[in-house]
């Protein structure tokens, strides 16, 4: 099996889908000849042409709306926002048009929106956001967030093959930092959680870029489980409850702003459905409710760090 970076795994999924299914096409700003802001579609233009790797005007609303129209026509559009942050500009088309179509009209909207998200490299308030919770709170959208190269590919295949609109959160900070062995060809990863490391004393429930952070933070601790959610909608409540039942103590880690984040939902699920298994408060680590500052010392002060995760685990283990 070849070793790929997280970014290469995403490229590989897109390439394989474009080759296998002529209904699939990509659209976004600068993804064609230029290969995309992060070079995810590097070389695609040559192989697949301008129609299937389509450069669009700078118009996020139109990108999402056009994708909806193409999807209900039987195509499989995969739209890229240049940065996840710009989805705010196409928000209405996504939450009102794409998300509600099947429930309202029985008309499936098989499309994917790729959102390069997350901070950690001085991107500042508009290039560092993790907006997944907005979409978890918008019925009709699926939301997935891989943390490994293998899952990045498998989840993207599954997302493209899914008959629903799927928001694909790809964390920019993992693009080139994370690599791993990735199966050749098309395979799908289910929208279910995965135990990244088994343990029995405490579980850290997290997703995306916080998975490697959690693994690092707890590497030397005894019996700490790390549950990688992978899918946020649907949320794998069973896996969460199972992990909590076995470990009895929970730390939830989120890179997004804390209030009403994915982590808040996980905590609420636990407080309702696994209360009796709990042996201590449900701790949360997240970015406080603040725009992500640009300057490195400020950014480092707000993003969840390996140290903060470790301290929270230590504290709870001693509870």
């Amino acid at each position, binding site marked *: 099996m070849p070793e790929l970076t997280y970014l290469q795994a995403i490229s590989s999924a897109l390439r394989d889908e474009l080759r296998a299914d002529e209904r699939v*096409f990509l659209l976004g700003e600068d993804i064609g000849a230029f290969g995309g802001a992060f070079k995810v579609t590097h070389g695609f233009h040559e192989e697949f042409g301008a*129609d*299937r790797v389509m450069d*669009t*005007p700078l*118009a996020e*609303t*139109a990108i*999402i*709306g*056009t*994708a*909806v*129209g*193409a*999807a*209900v*026509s*039987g*195509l499989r*559009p995969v739209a890229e926002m240049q940065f996840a942050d710009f989805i705010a500009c196409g928000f*209405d*088309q996504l939450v*009102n*048009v794409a998300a*509600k*179509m*099947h*429930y*309202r*009209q*029985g*008309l*499936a*909207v*098989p499309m994917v929106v790729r959102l390069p998200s997350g901070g950690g490299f001085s991107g500042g308030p508009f290039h560092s956001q993790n907006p997944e919770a907005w979409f978890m709170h918008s*019925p*009709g959208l*699926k939301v997935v967030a891989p943390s490994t190269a293998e899952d990045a590919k498998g989840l993207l295949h599954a997302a493209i093959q899914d*008959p*629903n609109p799927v928001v694909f959160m790809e964390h920019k900070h993992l693009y080139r930092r994370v690599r791993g062995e990735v199966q050749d060809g098309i395979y799908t990863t289910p929208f279910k959680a995965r135990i990244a490391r088994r343990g029995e004393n405490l579980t850290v429930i997290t997703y995306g870029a916080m998975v490697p952070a959690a693994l690092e933070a707890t590497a030397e601790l005894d019996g700490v489980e790390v549950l990688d959610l992978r899918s946020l909608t649907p949320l794998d409540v069973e896996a969460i409850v199972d992990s909590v039942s076995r470990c009895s103590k929970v730390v939830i880690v989120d890179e997004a702003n804390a209030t009403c984040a994915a982590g808040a939902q996980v905590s609420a699920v636990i407080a309702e459905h696994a209360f009796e298994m709990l042996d201590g408060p449900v701790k949360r680590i997240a970015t406080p409710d603040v725009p992500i500052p640009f300057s490195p010392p400020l950014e480092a002060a707000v993003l969840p760090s390996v140290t903060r995760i470790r301290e929270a685990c230590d504290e709870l283990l001693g509870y």
Partner: protein
Amino acid sequence: MLMMRGLEARALSLYKQGKVPGSFYDGYGQEAVSAGAAFAMAAEDRLCILHRDLAAHIVRGVEPARILAQYMGRASGITGGRDGNVHFGDRNRGCVGMVSMLPDMMCVANGLALAFKLRGQKAAALTFCGDGASSRGDFHEALNWAGVQRLGVIFVLENNQYAYSTPTSAQFAVDPVKRAETYGVRGVSVDGNDAEAMFAAVHEARTRAANGEGPTLVEAQTMRMHGHAAHDDMRYVPKELVEHWAARDPIKLQSKRLKELGVDLDALQRDVDAEIDAASQEALASPMPDPDTALDGVFCEGEATELADGLAPWSGWAHA
């Protein structure tokens, strides 16, 4: 047009009887716009139809009983009670149901046209936009994209002088049809109360669209002759304006023409009335949706089935 007027009148009376929940919108006095435009589209074309455009649904072949059931939130309505009165589109007739947010469907229509283009199909997409909705960004993003990619799409700008209580003078300084050519989109303006003029304009636009000659914005000049919705007495509209347009009623206009052609209009009206009576009975007999199904269908579980072609039995393209 007769059917639209009759169905909406019936729906309004059902509304007044408390049988139509929520609010009620109609297109009284604007019937020629959607009837004329939809007639010009072929079965394989795709449509996103708005709240003043019921005739387009009828032309596509949607059954009157299902329309009345839709208004009443019945299980046999097009959306099975999931969405409200005019917010529907029959996917089996090539239609995508509108969302409330206006004019979002313009971007969706581009996508429909893009699919035709990518597949090399000679067909077109049609949607509508009000004078008010033309102020929103989606209007611009859609026109610009359609122009630069030369999509086979037709936007009907339904200029009915008002957006709720807002007259066009507070909506724009210049009639938006003028903008068309600055996007590389053909722009034409027609009498929206003249069904045949509408047909001709959209028919030509459809020919061009299907032949890869790009998009058209057709302005239909008309008048909203009822309030914004059933609760609105539109006292903000000058009486003279209403009178002026009342004299230009699209159904009267078309009736005169048909009479000259020897059509028996009374018989036609009787047929329509009978159909509406039957539809009304059928719809009233349809049950309300089962509350146990309320959570079904948020996601598509099986294979995604795409839009099917319309019936368009009277289409100008039926034998093309």
